[in-house]
């Protein structure tokens, strides 16, 4: 039902009934007594906090998380087919389309879900490309490797910046673009290598 179909008469009646309701209602007489008894019967908790809740430890954990996250990304993208020789693809997985707009990932945590898809696509394409790189000239392989290296450096730099500023949508968009570039380049090269 849309706003256009609201019955004005019924709405007016409802407003009258709402206006007639009391402003406040007292709780039943024995409510407070029951609440008090419940609180008093609960054993008092110690206020001592664990070492993991101390600010210093939390700060260190945050730094470790950022460093670890970046390291995982670095390792993952470096396995994307350019350690040794660039991978050149055979069965290119479907192209990932990631509109990082207002409805897209809004934080690093959300983006990591999408990022895992990118990394999977890169790994698949790289493996296929490795198998077919014999059909490309050594010069082309070297240039492809160099291009992948350039994209990886951009990904790593944007990723580190995003880890330090996890809600920066502009960075998320940039990072997604770099991944798109990498997937697209690997995919195109694979198709070229296939002849």
């Amino acid at each position, binding site marked *: 039902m849309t706003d256009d179909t609201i019955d004005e008469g019924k709405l007016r009646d409802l407003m009258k009934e709402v206006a007639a309701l009391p402003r406040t209602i007292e709780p039943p007489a024995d409510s407070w007594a029951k609440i008090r008894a419940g609180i008093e019967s609960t054993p008092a908790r110690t206020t001592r906090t664990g070492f993991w809740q101390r600010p210093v430890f939390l700060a260190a954990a945050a730094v470790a998380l950022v460093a670890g996250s970046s390291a995982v990304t670095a390792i993952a993208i470096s396995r994307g087919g350019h350690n040794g020789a660039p991978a050149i693809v055979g069965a290119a997985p479907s192209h990932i389309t990631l509109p990082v707009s207002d409805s897209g990932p809004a934080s690093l945590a959300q983006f990591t879900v999408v990022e895992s898809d990118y990394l999977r696509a890169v790994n698949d394409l790289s493996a296929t490309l490795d198998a077919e790189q014999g059909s490309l*000239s050594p010069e*082309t392989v070297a240039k*492809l490797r160099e291009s992948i290296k*350039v*994209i990886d450096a951009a990904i790593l*730099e944007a990723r580190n910046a995003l880890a330090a500023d996890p809600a920066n949508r502009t960075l998320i968009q*940039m990072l997604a673009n*770099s991944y798109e570039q990498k997937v697209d380049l690997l995919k195109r090269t694979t198709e070229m290598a296939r002849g």
Partner: protein
Amino acid sequence: MSHLRRALLVAISITAIARVGAAQVKVERGLHLDADGSIRLINLVGSVRVTGWERDSVSLRGSLPKGDKLMMGGGPRAMKAFIESTDDRNPQPSTLELMVPARAKVWVKTATADIDVTGISGDLDLYVVGGRIRVSGKPTELNAEAIDGDIEVNGKPIWLRAKSASGNVTFNGSSSDVAISTVSGGITVSSVPADGSGKFERAKIESVTGAIRFNADIEKGAAIDFDTHSGSMEIAIPRKTGVDFDVASIAGSITNDLNYAKVAKGRYGRGSELVMTNATGGARVTIRSFKGPVTLRSAK
């Protein structure tokens, strides 16, 4: 001594040229193809020149290495041609000149062979690994892809997609729908409004480290996106063109030489931002850079 050496060099050159000539075999084929038919051509090494003409036929001429064969066949709606090399691992250069109906759909793929296309108003799909692609004219759709080759487009394709990794992309003209991307290759887009080169409506131009140069006019209501990681960007439009700019650089500088709007500090506490309207506004231009410098200026 000097004369003797020169004579010797000339003699060696003539012998070499004669051998190359003798090692090449000339070929010529002609087949009927509908005016809007399709043709696919593969030539890995050498060169391919495609020219549109006002006939419903295809003419393929060229020279091949001795022993290689030109394979060509198909019907009036679609045909295919390729070189069967005697040595697939090390193919020798073939030079091919293809005349096709101007409205035909042309698909060409090479490895290092250069591709030159003129006079096609149909669709073009061009792929090279390390060769150069050069297109002149007004194709309806143009898709040009290279890995490390350069791409040059002169004209007014209605729809253009151009991609290279380390090669440069140069577009002199205009199009209503453009997407250009490179990794480290530079991108240059230019049209001269005074020459009636047209305006841009939808465009996405992106690089990773390659420099981007845009010097052209924009339609009212257009949507243009520029994106780079660390390439420098120089965006120039006519001073009177109405554009709503949204420029953001995470760690790079923004210079505004187009109007008096001031660049602000980035909303995330670093970098630079510039959100402003030039003239009456209307078109939307979004520029994103991680650390490459961005410059806005008036088109020359």
